[in-house]
């Protein structure tokens, strides 16, 4: 059961950090390289400015706003900032940190940029000063907590207020979000008992609903947008494949038996907190991340979808949570439930909205892991029904809309299923 991982090479914390560091560096190299090769570098700088000055409300694809090269550099900058915090605070590179890192990277393709995440980090830092605790204690929550970053961009750049007042109010709002997200997210876990992996998505959905309601009370309407790249870029697919191959090889280098040991991971239900790096080791974990990443990418390409910003966020989040609760056995029943429901209601499976619902629905993987494939399938059905409707409640300021929906599904479904269970 993974209590003795004798076949695994011991990796130092710094080496693990370098593995994570390689990903933003890859995006930086490709972003700058492709920019130099294809166009004037000033285009990339203006693309970065456009990304940082956009309202970023769901769904705003940075590839459409600033171009591929500028988006890569945005991903690299956000990634490097988080690597710096991991290094500075000597964080153990465990499953939750890997999940948080990949989630932040993924959402830097749509929604997160240096401008709108900064106030949330500052709010978290002020919270630690107020509580007299270390910033290290809350950094994971703050990394995930940038789900509400669009609130800052929306207030700043949607033209609803005078620019100077708008930026001030936006930054204060961001600081407030960072300050309250830690106690709230911890408390919200109890609503779904750890069966919704994107717990911050649920928390952010609640906070977002309150903040959007306040804005609406002042006659300010927050409306979701639909700015999506409709063009496939081969360079994006190539980079994702490079990252997945890197994880595969690293897994095999760290543990030569990793593929043989992979079935061990299927015995874990995936409920929070299931840290695969501890339970089955880094070798098997990296192989698992690579496997579910390849299948996610293959699914998108096979159904003729576009690998744009939101889809990349979905793929990267799935890869990240391959270290923290998700594997094929507990994810597939949920995904099948979502796909069947989408087909039943006549949605186009290759549309970006449905693709990201399929990918992010794996937030409910612990339900299939704990209660079996049939209950998992129905969790997917309910998720599909809810996720297409709950975005309007928070007006699109919560990037993890699927986490919000997943929290509602898990919180409602688990007690009902338990009610039918016998001792």
């Amino acid at each position, binding site marked *: 059961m993974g*209590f003795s991982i004798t076949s695994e090479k011991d990796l130092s914390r710094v080496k693990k950090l370098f593995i994570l560091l390689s990903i933003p560096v890859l995006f930086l190299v490709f972003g700058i390289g492709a920019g130099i090769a294809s166009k004037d570098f000033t285009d990339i700088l203006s693309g970065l400015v456009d990304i940082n000055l956009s309202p970023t409300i769901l769904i705003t694809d940075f590839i459409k706003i600033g171009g591929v090269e500028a988006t890569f550099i945005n991903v690299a900058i956000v990634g490097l900032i988080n690597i710096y915090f991991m290094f500075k605070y000597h964080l153990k590179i465990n499953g939750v940190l890997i999940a948080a890192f990949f989630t932040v990277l993924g959402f830097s393709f749509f929604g997160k940029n240096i401008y709108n995440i900064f106030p949330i980090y500052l709010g978290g830092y002020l919270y630690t000063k107020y509580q007299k605790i270390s910033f290290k*204690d809350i950094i994971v929550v703050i990394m995930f907590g940038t789900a509400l970053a669009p609130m800052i961009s929306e207030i700043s750049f949607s033209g609803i207020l005078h620019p100077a007042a708008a930026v001030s109010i936006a930054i204060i709002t961001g600081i407030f979000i960072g300050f309250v997200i*830690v106690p709230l997210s911890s408390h919200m876990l109890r609503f779904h008992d*750890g069966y919704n992996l994107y717990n911050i998505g649920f928390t952010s959905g609640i906070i977002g609903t309150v903040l959007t309601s306040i804005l609406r009370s002042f006659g300010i309407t927050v409306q979701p947008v639909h700015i999506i790249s409709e063009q496939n870029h081969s360079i994006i697919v190539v980079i994702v494949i490079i990252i997945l191959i890197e994880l595969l090889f690293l897994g095999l280098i760290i543990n030569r038996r990793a593929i043989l040991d992979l079935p061990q991971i299927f015995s874990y*239900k995936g409920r*929070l*907190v299931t*840290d695969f790096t*501890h339970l089955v080791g880094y070798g098997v974990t990296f192989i698992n991340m690579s496997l579910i990443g390849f299948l996610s990418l293959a699914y998108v390409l096979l159904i003729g979808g576009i690998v744009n910003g939101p889809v990349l966020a979905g793929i990267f989040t799935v890869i990240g949570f391959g270290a923290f609760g998700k594997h094929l056995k507990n994810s597939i029943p949920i995904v099948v439930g979502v796909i069947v429901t989408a087909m039943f209601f006549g949605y186009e499976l290759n549309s970006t909205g449905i693709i990201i619902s399929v990918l992010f629905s794996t937030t409910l993987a612990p339900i299939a892991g704990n209660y079996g494939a049939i209950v998992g399938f129905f969790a997917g059905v309910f998720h599909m029904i809810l996720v297409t409707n709950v975005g309007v409640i928070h007006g699109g300021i919560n990037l993890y809309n699927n986490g919000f929906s997943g929290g509602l599904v898990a919180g409602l479904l688990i007690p009902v299923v338990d009610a039918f269970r016998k001792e």
Partner: protein
Amino acid sequence: MQHEEKKLTLIINELLTLLLLNGAEEIDVNIKRKGDASEITMIHRQCKYDAKFIEKMKYNLNTQRQSEVEGYYWQLVGEDDSSNELHLVGAMIDTAEVDMKQNDLHIFLVRKK
């Protein structure tokens, strides 16, 4: 550390659930609080656990203190019927000793504030 007393209670709750699920009929629990450290001793009387179970328990409880994991997920400890959160308990304690002494399972945990 915020909610210190509640966290100690949840740690004990998680371990008690695990032992009760394994058929425990008699369990002694002792808590000593000395300055910044709290010591929890739990003894499951008259029990049989194989070496694999003991090793797994030691491995999960000695996962290393991880304040960032504790800060976020501590409220899930002891909340589930299946008692699968031992490594989360491990992230909330500094040292753990698990041993079979004759027919009794001895668990000794130290948590510093």
